[in-house]
């Protein structure tokens, strides 16, 4: 039986409210299917299930606010396996006992106790009861502790008291801008406090890229036109393949580059605030697919409809403020990522080459790097590689 839990959708998330179930008991579910919506400080987020199965039991009622890690439903694996979906999941955001990519969420929240795995909710509860978590026997995979384990232990030790009824939450009413501001404040303050940033910038001649794009767009119907931002995004992904140290997380006092390139794409909300959902496997998508992915994310972000995994698994951040006319962006890294790439506006600027002065469309690319994870030379190599790709637009 797999436990479907309230995921952690960011370092700053402690609890979430289940808004609605999109499935019923007995329904067959497919891996990747959004089966519930959760209201968080970041708006309404769709939560996916991580393996095929049948919904055995819906435990938490809509409108209930629960801590991160709380079991929301039980999913029976197809074929009757009794593994935990959360621990099997190759994608993060499935639950509190997550391996690989999402491990940072757990570690960030200070949830590892030596080698002991414990859910945030369980840890909190243990703290409330004053129980030493080391004394509790976990029932999860590899002895991981769940909230139920702690409650059982508390009962056994005569510490349990009646839990107060879960606080009912208001029905979803769009984005809570104050909460979003606080979430951004917490993440950015932490970044500036903990990450020693270094900044590099370079000017990239975009004439080849734009010339190629103009010809390409002439061949396409207006609905399939490509914007230069797609080229920059793909160029970043290709450059990261050659300079992988900038793509990943600073965790456990070491840099942990990730193989997959999931680029967090900064999208501003018109009323204020910012989301950075990830575009998955950017290096493997063609420009048309990237346009589709960006358009889809922009629409869903502004409508407050994102998926949990999109908010947690970005391996680097990409921000383009060019539409507002700024020349360069010196970004604040989103921890535990180790780099942020920023682009200003593509403008015509004087450009010298081979002793000749001309006018070219130019963009300023900046890199904010975490100096704990990499040194300036790595960032310099990245920007140089990016520049090279922008001069070979047919390869993107």
């Amino acid at each position, binding site marked *: 039986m797999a436990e479907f839990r309230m995921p952690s959708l960011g370092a700053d998330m402690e609890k979430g409210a289940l808004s609605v179930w999109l499935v019923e008991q007995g329904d067959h579910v497919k891996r990747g299917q959004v089966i519930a919506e959760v209201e968080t400080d970041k708006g309404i987020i769709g939560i996916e299930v991580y393996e095929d199965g049948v919904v055995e039991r819906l435990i938490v009622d809509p409108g209930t606010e629960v801590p991160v890690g709380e079991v929301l439903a039980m999913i029976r694996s197809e074929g009757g396996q009794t593994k935990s979906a959360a621990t099997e999941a190759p994608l993060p955001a499935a639950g509190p006992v997550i391996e690989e990519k999402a491990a940072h969420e757990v570690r960030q929240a200070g949830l590892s106790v030596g080698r002991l795995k414990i859910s945030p909710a369980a840890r909190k509860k243990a703290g409330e009861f004053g129980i030493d978590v080391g004394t509790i026997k976990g029932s999860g995979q590899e002895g991981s502790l769940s909230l139920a384990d702690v409650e059982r232990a508390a009962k056994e030790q005569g510490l349990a008291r009646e839990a107060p009824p879960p606080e009912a939450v208001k029905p979803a009413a769009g984005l809570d801008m104050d909460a979003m501001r606080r979430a951004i404040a917490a993440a950015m303050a932490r970044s500036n406090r903990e990450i020693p940033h270094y900044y590099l910038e370079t000017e990239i001649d975009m004439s080849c890229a734009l010339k190629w794009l103009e010809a390409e767009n*002439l061949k396409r119907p207006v*609905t399939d036109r490509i*914007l230069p931002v797609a080229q920059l995004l793909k160029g970043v992904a290709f450059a990261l393949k050659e300079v992988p140290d900038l793509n990943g997380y600073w965790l456990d006092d070491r840099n942990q580059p990730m193989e997959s390139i999931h680029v967090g794409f900064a999208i501003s909300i018109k009323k204020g605030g910012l989301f950075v959902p990830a575009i998955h496997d950017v290096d493997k998508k063609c420009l048309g697919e990237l346009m589709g992915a960006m358009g889809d994310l*922009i629409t869903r972000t502004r409508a407050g409809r994102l998926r949990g995994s999109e908010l947690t698994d970005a391996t680097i951040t990409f921000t383009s403020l060019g539409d507002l006319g700024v020349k360069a962006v010196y970004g604040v890294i989103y921890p535990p990522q180790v780099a942020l790439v920023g682009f200003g506006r593509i403008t015509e600027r004087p450009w010298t080459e081979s002793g000749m002065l001309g006018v070219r469309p130019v963009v300023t690319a900046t890199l904010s790097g975490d100096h704990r994870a990499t040194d300036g030379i790595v960032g310099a190599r990245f920007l140089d590689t990016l520049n090279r790709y922008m001069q070979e637009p047919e390869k993107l």
Partner: protein
Amino acid sequence: MTAQEIKNIIFRIVRQIAPEADFDKLLPEENLREALDIDSFDFLNVIIGISKEFGVEVPESDYSKIVSLADMVNYLSERIGQKIK
């Protein structure tokens, strides 16, 4: 199609893309994108909307001809006129 009709359709297209756009304060000669905070993605959607509503595909090389609302109305009147001929 009159200039006013073209303008109304443009407003409808833009309103779908940027619902918070304030047309009351928009001056006809103003830079439309800057005044209404329309980014490059939104602008591409405006172009797609124009193609659906007017049957006019605006090539990228003509973007400089549709910077303000007045420009856009003139440009579209001309293109629609050409189409009818």
